[in-house]
């Protein structure tokens, strides 16, 4: 005699599907019930990929912006890689009270190299283990590099240059992290010839500048 799984609940397949739909809506509402978005700015202007923004008598074009967002909760840790080429939005649990920008030491050493943490995304230093927490690349006339490019690959998980950014966030409300990247761009152009691409004190300093430029909007 055949026994269908819906016999257990004495429900028809149609009703069971409806029930599953309701459960999934409730799950997404209460467990992943809100959005976190990143909003990179240059001073007061939102960054649009490949669009020129005037800043400090300079024309700045952002060609890449990627960042890791880690959401630790009591039961699990969620890792998202946000890329301006896709969108800068991810779902986070309602009960999350903190987010981390970047992959910290613990997450780094226990990585399984899959999903958002797959090195195929170009956010893992293969010559010097560890994840790039934030990648910002663009063009500025102030850059002395070839074709006036500037590059910031900011990361580091070992002491004394652990550079992930922990942030407290309120519960039960959408979160918008506004990041003014202009001070960071000014610093890399003024102090480091437009390029910081390895862990260490330079990346550490730039991440601290970035940290001071974050505003949490609800």
């Amino acid at each position, binding site marked *: 005699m055949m026994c269908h799984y819906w016999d257990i609940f004495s429900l028809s397949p149609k009703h069971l599907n409806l029930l599953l739909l309701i459960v999934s809506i409730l799950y997404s509402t209460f467990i992943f019930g809100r959005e976190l978005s990143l909003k990179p700015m240059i001073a007061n202007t939102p960054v649009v990929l490949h669009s020129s923004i005037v800043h400090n008598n300079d024309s700045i074009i952002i060609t890449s912006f990627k960042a890791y967002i880690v959401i630790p909760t009591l039961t699990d840790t969620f890792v998202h890689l946000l890329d301006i080429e896709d969108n800068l939005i991810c779902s986070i649990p309602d009960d999350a009270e903190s987010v981390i920008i970047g992959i910290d030491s613990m997450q780094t050493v226990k990585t399984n190299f899959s999903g958002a943490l797959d090195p195929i995304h170009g956010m893992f230093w293969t010559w*010097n283990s560890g994840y790039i927490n934030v990648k910002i690349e663009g063009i500025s006339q102030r850059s002395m590099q070839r074709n006036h490019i500037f590059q910031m690959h900011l990361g580091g998980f070992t002491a004394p240059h652990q550079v992930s950014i922990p942030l407290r966030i309120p519960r039960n409300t959408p979160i918008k992290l506004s990041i003014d990247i202009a001070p960071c761009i000014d610093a890399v152009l003024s102090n480091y010839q437009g390029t910081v691409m390895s862990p260490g004190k330079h990346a550490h300093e730039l991440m601290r500048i970035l940290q001071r430029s974050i505003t949490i909007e609800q």
Partner: protein
Amino acid sequence: MRHIILISCSMFLLMSFISVNDEYFPKPKYPIADPDSPIVSLGRELFHDPILSKDSTVSCASCHSQYNAFAHSDHALSHGSADRIGRRNAPSLINLAWSESFMWDGASFSLEAQVLTPLTAHHEMDNSLDTILHRLRNQTKYSNLVQKAFGESPIQTKHVLKAIADYESTLISRNSRYDSMRMHLVEFTEQEKKGYVLFKQYCNRCHAEPLFTNGQFANNALPVDTTLNDLGRYAITQDSAQIRHFKIPTLRNLLYSFPYMHDGRFKRLREVLNHYAEGINMHDETRSIKHLIPLSSHDITDLMSFLHALTDRTFIFNPAFSTKQYPQRNQ
């Protein structure tokens, strides 16, 4: 029948004796995979397959060949894709499960992470993960191996890293004459005993028994090679005290793993020992070795006799490590 029982009992007692006495070996830091597991089989295939390099000319085994104790003979510096020459001597891959950091500069924090470096480095295999996965997914052999190993497909980055790391964890050498001595199965010759005494007096602090490395980094005060100007561990930590510090290599099977040092500058073991006896660069402020080691010519010969006892031919010729399917490029 009585003979069989007697022999069986003797074997059991002998095996018990061995198992008790090999406790001189520490516990590994990384789980050692079952050499017969499907994951290790996949790793063994990948390790020997030049498909992983950009121009399909070099495999991991090209620079880490078994008959060189998984090092690279004859080349001072590693020989990569498109005939590029690297900046460092390919180290031997021995007892990696006991290690906590990898590469000469300790850049990699795990065996899996370590796999990524040679796959993508320009002067090594110079490939991208996209290309590697695309190639592997187009081969039925690998689809089958991955399905068998992980119960899923297609192959992903994590499978490649895990499989090669697990294979490397099985590269265990602990069957040398030294090991037999530690298990009281043989007795050293007088010359080996003299060499062992010297070793414990002068070398054991860094090349600590029984792994013959303490896993740390040190500057052994080699004259600086200005053509490479390799700053070693400093490039990773940016700690000026670690300028020209390199991972202390194991001495096991060093008869097979020549040339020596991070830049492969010494072809012969006696040259290495002469360096410590009379060649130390006393002007190097970050050197870890402060004084010349007072070794006479006779002492060096005795030390070499002891170091020869670290050779493990069952490791060098273990068929389980090899696939024998892929022709190795001429060295």
